[in-house]
């Protein structure tokens, strides 16, 4: 589900006086980045965070401005703060948001510089270059100084015009990850020392990751609550990354990597309260090899959706999936509760497959974009068709509802105009990773178990170039209300501009309309149901 959006707030000048307009342009900030702020449970939108580059004070010191809006687009607060941004004469760098999260009565946001060179040292401790964080108090609207993490400790930085940043100073910083509703996860610095002359970045990264021996949970004051050990046995050391969390569990993904492959191994479950290891989700099956697709944490369960491959398929060939499996685990014990398989053939008679790997004659294949676990035990599946041909095509949307045993209860094909990509035989998993499909996201409508699913469709007929030059985009809006499905659409291409849909609070959608005549209009619209 995409949680990132781009929101441009353009100040419309009401004074068409040339000099005044220029002054106004110089006085306002340059939009840098934005994020949706979710509430603590990540189930609804709390508001929006916008970041601007306000003024450049010296070569590497800027005044930046943030604006925080509530979920009705009212301004909560805004402020200017002094920020260092690493500059390199060879590469254009700038500050970007890493995350924005609400923690109690604070907003915590992370920044990094988009100096994304494969700099080996980065991977010792951090996911991005020059990671740093700030907190905004929503009671008195104060903003903290910059906070960085080194050796698991928070340190403060204050900048002034004329300060210089050096690579040496910026290297050993650590990444923190929002976890649960008000905590943060931090991995311990790697105990591996990268040689001065490092041959082969990937092997170095693997060694760095395998020598991370622990992780800690921080509270909202960035104090360590507990530390757990990982990679205790050097011979069995692997790479860990943060997968998911809520207030009960924290889940890490463990992968193995060697010279040839990088493969998922298992999930490890830890208790959020104590850091105690609960168990491992090893994802083994007597009949299949499994490749992870999605994980949900819902009530007392961990719900995992995996691709199914043949046992002999050691490399998880992208186009040789047999279907999917949904496995439910208990959070407290890590024990498996249920396992339900969905093979392609189970979708008959709605779709006819030629082979066990999901090939549909004279069509192509389908791949699931998302699954929604409903309170009643049913599951909604959203899939899209594609054809990995000389020019890969994105085809129709499919909506399915499965009963608790993953048997098809409802099936609907939503025909779409095909999108032709200038790429040869791209597998579905790769198309997914590049977000090439037309599915946008799903969202709760309310707290009554009702949902909306959004996707895009270019309804323009004609050749690829014509459709690209003169598109007719619509937003497909599918609602699931009281167990009933309804289908609606909204034109996104207007006669003199376009509309960009953005996620909004439950039951609503934010539409940003650009028009030659009227400029930019932001509308918070209720989903029609």
């Amino acid at each position, binding site marked *: 589900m995409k949680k990132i959006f781009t929101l441009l707030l353009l100040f419309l000048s009401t004074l068409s006086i040339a000099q005044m307009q*220029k*002054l106004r342009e*110089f006085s306002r900030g340059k939009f840098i980045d934005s994020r949706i702020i979710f509430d603590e449970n990540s189930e609804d939108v709390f508001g929006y965070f916008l970041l601007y580059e306000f*003024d450049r004070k010296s070569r590497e010191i800027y005044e930046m401005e943030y604006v925080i809006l509530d979920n009705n*687009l009212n301004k909560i*607060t805004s402020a200017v703060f002094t920020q260092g941004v690493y500059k390199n004469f060879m590469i254009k760098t700038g500050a970007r948001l890493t995350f924005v999260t609400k923690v109690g009565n604070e907003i915590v946001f992370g920044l990094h510089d988009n100096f994304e060179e494969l700099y080996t040292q980065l991977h010792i401790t951090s996911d991005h270059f020059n990671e740093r964080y700030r907190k905004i108090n929503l009671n008195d609207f104060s903003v903290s100084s910059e906070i960085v993490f080194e050796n698991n400790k928070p340190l403060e930085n204050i900048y002034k015009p004329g300060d210089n940043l050096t690579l040496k100073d910026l290297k050993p910083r650590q990444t923190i990850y929002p976890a649960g509703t008000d905590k943060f996860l931090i991995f311990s610095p790697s105990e591996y020392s990268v040689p001065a002359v490092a041959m082969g970045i990937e092997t170095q990264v693997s060694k760095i990751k395998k020598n991370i021996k622990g992780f800690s949970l921080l509270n909202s004051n960035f104090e360590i609550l507990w530390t757990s050990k990982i990679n205790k046995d050097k011979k069995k050391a692997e790479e860990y990354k943060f997968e998911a969390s809520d207030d009960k569990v924290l889940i890490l993904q463990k992968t193995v990597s060697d010279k040839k492959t990088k493969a998922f191994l298992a999930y490890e479950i830890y208790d959020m309260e104590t850091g105690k290891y609960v168990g491992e989700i090893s994802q083994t099956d007597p009949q299949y090899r499994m490749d992870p697709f999605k994980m949900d944490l819902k009530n007392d369960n961990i719900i995992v959706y995996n691709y199914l491959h043949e046992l002999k398929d050691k490399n998880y060939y992208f186009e040789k999936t047999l279907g999917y499996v949904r496995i439910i685990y208990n959070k407290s014990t890590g024990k498996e509760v249920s396992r339900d398989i969905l093979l392609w053939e189970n979708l008959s008679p709605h779709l006819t497959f030629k082979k066990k790997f999901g090939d549909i004659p004279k069509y192509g294949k389908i791949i699931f974009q998302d699954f929604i676990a409903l309170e009643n035990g049913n599951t909604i599946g959203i899939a899209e068709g594609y054809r990995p041909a000389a020019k890969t095509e994105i085809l129709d949307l499919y909506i399915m509802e499965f009963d608790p045993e993953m048997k098809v209860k409802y099936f609907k094909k939503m025909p779409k105009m095909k999108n032709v990509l200038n790429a040869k035989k791209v597998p579905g998993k790769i198309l997914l990773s590049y977000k090439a499909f037309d599915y946008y996201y799903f969202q709760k409508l309310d707290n009554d178990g009702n949902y909306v699913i959004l996707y895009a469709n270019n309804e323009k007929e004609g050749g690829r170039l014509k459709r690209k030059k003169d598109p007719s985009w619509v937003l497909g809006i599918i609602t699931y209300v009281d167990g009933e499905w309804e289908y609606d659409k909204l034109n996104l291409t207007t006669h003199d501009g376009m509309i960009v849909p953005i996620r909004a609070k439950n039951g609503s959608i934010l539409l940003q309309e650009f028009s030659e005549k009227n400029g930019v209009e932001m509308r918070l*619209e209720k989903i*029609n149901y």
Partner: protein
Amino acid sequence: MTAAFSEKISEGHFVDDKLYSSFFNGVLDKLREANPNFPQIERTKILLSHGTAPNAYAIGDDIIVLYVPLLTNLENESQLAYIISHEIAHNLLEHSTKGMMAYSSLQQSQELKQKTKQIKRMKYNRASESISVYKDLLYGSKRNSREFEIEADSLGFVLFKNAFPTQEYQAVSALQLLESIDKEKDSLTVPDYTLLFATNEVPFKTEWINNEELNSYKYDTTPKFWTVDSLKTHPDCAIRAEFIATKFNVTSKETAKASSDFQYLQHLSQYNDILGLYAIKEYGKSLYSTFLKLKEEPDNPFLRSMAASNLERLQEAQKKYILDRHLDRLSPRNSDSYNTFLYFIREIRRKEMNFLINLYKA
């Protein structure tokens, strides 16, 4: 005449009604007769406009515009006469032309052009420098606007006093009234919703008005650059009232009762306001005003018809995903009652909206 004004004409914002025009002309006649030194008053045209705010303005060319919501909020016709006098004063003093000339001279200013070029060449601190210059210009511009208001207050008082010599206090009371004119005078309560919205098919659900949305937010009210008081175009009306009272030695504080004619005009204006808001496609505001009146007159056929029509227009807008153009969003600047109303309209589902439409159509 600007394009925006022409557009308002073509969109039907203005009201052409003999009842209003004869009332306004009566005021103009008195002002003209009592102020022979200002023969231009004879050329004055008063336009009545639908609108969302209790406001009035002068656009030059001897034209002034009054908004219907203004009429419903005044206490008596003398206050109206003073406001008309104030707007006439703006035209007599040619404030509109002077304002345009001031902006025009800014554009021609070589000093400003040089300064702008210099700022453009700056590598560092460009925004800070621009704000400093822009703020000075803005302060200057707003200062002019405030001076214009004080001039119009003063000349308007002179014109008004000449025509209504025993009513001079009403000029002061009009300005005092403007200070709080935006504050809501009525509201919809939970019993009101139950009365107005319960149908046999769909019993009223309290969760429809269980509006907690804004409660989870605290809003920063620290003045920022663009909102400081010194940048307001109108100084506080309380200060203006005090200025007039002091400058012209207004000692009487006798309130005046509205005449029966004015009361009738105001009574009609309440319904015209509802219809006017509908005409300018402010369906949300029109519906809210309708419900406030329906509390007192639940069987009024006009009000019931307006409720149904506004609900239908809102439903149509929602289907086209343009509801936001016709219904305000929740805001901390709104009253709790209005926010609850907005929440209610945005919360109910399509079938519930259908039942409500049918309820008011019956």
